[in-house]
Structures are given as structure tokens and as C-alpha cells.
């Protein structure tokens, strides 16, 4: 359902957040504490990305006249 995609941030948004984290980590004035916190948050985002990829192979479905889904 598309609502699901809207509730948790999608891959696109997560990618943006990861870019942001990396940009902050690139700052050489960053404190070690912040650096660790950012890394941890980044690893969390990567996990979310992998969860979104949802690596279960999908069969094409067909939407019936009566609105039911079945395998093509």
C-alpha cells in the first residue's frame, strides 16, 4: 500500500539523510562523540534501506473484476 511508503521515509529520503550524515562526518572539526553518534544513526538508516528493499521475490499479481488480487 502506498500509505506504508509514506509513513516510514522512503529510500529516496533515506539516501538524502545518509548524504547529510556523511557531509557532517567529513567536517574535520567534528567531535568524536558526534562522529560516533552520526555513524550509529547512519548504520540505522542503512538497515532501514535494506528493510525497504524487502528481498522477497514477487510474482506478478492480477487485479480481478471483483477487486481481489491473484497470481498472474
Amino acid at each position: 500500500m502506498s500509505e506504508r511508503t509514506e509513513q516510514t521515509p522512503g529510500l529516496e529520503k533515506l539516501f538524502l539523510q545518509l548524504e547529510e550524515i556523511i557531509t557532517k562526518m567529513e567536517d574535520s572539526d567534528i567531535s568524536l562523540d558526534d562522529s560516533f553518534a552520526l555513524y550509529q544513526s547512519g548504520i540505522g538508516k542503512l538497515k532501514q534501506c535494506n528493510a525497504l528493499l524487502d528481498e522477497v521475490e514477487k510474482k506478478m499479481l492480477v487485479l480481478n473484476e471483483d477487486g481481489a488480487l491473484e497470481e498472474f
Partner: protein
Amino acid sequence: MKRNIYSVGQVNTYIKNMFAQDFMLQRICVKGEVSNCKYHTSGHIYFTLKDAAGAIGAVMFAGNRRGLAFRMKEGDKVIVTGSIEVYERDGKYQLYAKEIELDGAGSLFQKFEALKQELAEMGMFAPEYKQPIPKYARRVGVVTAPTGAAVQDIRNIASRRNPYVQLILYPAQVQGEGAVKSIVNGIRALDALGVDVLIVGRGGGSIEDLWAFNEEEVARAIFECRTPVISAVGHETDTTIADFVADLRAPTPSAAAEMAVFDYFTVKEQLSVYRRRMELLLRRNVEQARMRLANYRTKLSYVSPAGRLRENRSYAAELEEKLKDHMEKTILEKKHRLALLSGRLEGLSPARKLSQGYAWVSDETGKAVTDAADVTVGDTLSIHLWKGSLKAAVTEIV
């Protein structure tokens, strides 16, 4: 009652004769739009002449080609002069063209242009209504025929790029009567079901085959669809109203699948790039902090009380050493000088002169006498010799 039974050939011959005897059909001008036009290698041209009401098969034999002054193509509106005869083998009548001339633009084309302009004026093609196609769709809806190349192409491309994306097909009728309603229902049903992006289209075909995608109802359904729509009708060269109103136009159904389904392997690679980059940066930042720590430690040891004390102590020791050196040197110098002076002093001592017969004279008060004028006759003077002293009275002043 006795029945007359005829062969197929007899019936066709009979009908052929009926046509042949009809004066009007022997020389007739017919206007319509060219479709399914095929230039055969034999030089004959086969085509269909049609309008909104119907169609008729037509042929121009190679021997009549001088009656055609242009390259006839799909959609041309033409006036054909010729005869209508029966082709006995197929039991079909067709138009045998002797002359073909252009008659302005084809009517389907005109209809297309008129609707295109109307919808454009309503703003249905306006870029501000175009929705962005999601880059990473999880569910992709497809409105097309369940049989045919389009659905297979989309399926193949999708499973090659990302087998984990869910495709949901609405099996639509894409040509003929009922196609418009079927396509519209498909768009609405999948929009209501909830998908991230919708592909609406079909494979290639004649302009009539694709016509449903030029109908206003389909255009409206695409326009009103809340899900972003990619149109994919026919081949690269086919452009339909659906293409103008869709959020994105794909040249073919395969291309639509490429646009709708993100590449799984690219995303995986991107994720590992992010991971490596973050690990590298973390390591660098830890290393930097370690270096900074070492640097501070060195600086701190200079300014700490212990450090100061140590430094002062060594300075004091240095000073003490210097002082000692200095003192020793001074004492030595003084000793030297003393020896020198005492040697010289010895040489100057008056006592030493006395030993050589000199004497020292003093008056009665003990004061040294150095001038004869200070003495009067009769005074007693003391004469001090090297050894012992004498008392002497002054008898004369010389």
C-alpha cells in the same frame, strides 16, 4: 419443394456479376483515411480506406501506379477513384484504385489534433500538473492487455532490474469496442488499490488499434489519477493524447518498465558505498582525535605544576653550578693576588732597611722626626736600630 443448391464459386461469381453490372460501382470516387498501407514488392499497394463509419479494403495494382503521385502513408486523407469489384477467392469486395489524390489531412488525424488542442487549452498537459515519478517504487500498477508483448516486456524488464518490486496488472482490453471503458476502469481500480506508480499502455499497432489512447475519457482518467502515470503506447514514433496528459511518456512498454522499476543492484551498491564511506570517516575521526589527544598531553605536561617544578629545579641546579664555578675562580684569583702583593710588600718593608744600618728616629712623643728644623739642641731623640734602640741628646743642629 425442390431446393437449388449452389457452390461457393457460383455465388461469388453471381455477386461479382451484380457488381459488374452496377454502373455506379464501375467508376466511383471514394474519400477516406488510409490505414494498414502496404507497398508490396510486386509493386501493388494494399491498404484500407476508412472513416468513422466504416472501412473498405483497397488495392492499387502496379500497372495503375502512375495514378498515384505521392508516397501514401498511414493516416493520409485521400480521394480514391476506381471501381468496386468482388474478389471471388475470398468472397470480398474491394476498391480497385486507378487514381489516388490527397484530400487534406485525414479525419482521425483532425480529430486527434482537435482534441489535443482542446485538452491543451484546458491545461491538462500543463507541466505544473505533472507528478514526479517515484525513484524507488515498491508497487507498480500496469494497465494493459494480459496477453501480448507489452505485459511480457514489462514483466521481463522488471524482474531483471528488481525481482523484489511488486507488479500488479489490471487486465484491460486495449483496442476495439469497450477498450476506453476498460482502460479507464483499470486506471481507477489501481489508483484506488494504491500503487506507487502506474504504467498505462500497449504494444504497437495501427492508428485504429491505438485509438483508445486518443480518447478524452482515457485522458481524463489519467489526468485525475492520484498515482503518477507513465504512458507507454506503441512504438517510439506513436504519440497519443495519453502521452501528453501522462506524468511521463515512455517510448515503449519496455522503456516504461525501466522508468518505473528501480535497479536493485545499483541501490545495493550505493548502500555499500555509503557504509564504506562512513566507516572510513569514523576511522579518520578517531585517528584525528587520538592525535589531538597526544598533542594536548605534550602541551599539558609543559604547563603542569610538576612540570614547572621540574624545570625550576633544574634551573636552580644550573645556577648553583655557575655560582660555585664563579666562587672558586674568584678565590683563586684573590689568592694569587695576595701572594703577589705579599712578595712585593716584603721588598718594601722599612724593617728590612734597618738591617742594613739604617735607623728610624722619633721624638719623645714617639713621632717620627723627618726635619732638623723640628728639633732643638738638648732634645732627647730615640734612635731605633735593626736590633734595639738608643736614647741620644741633640748637641748641634747642622
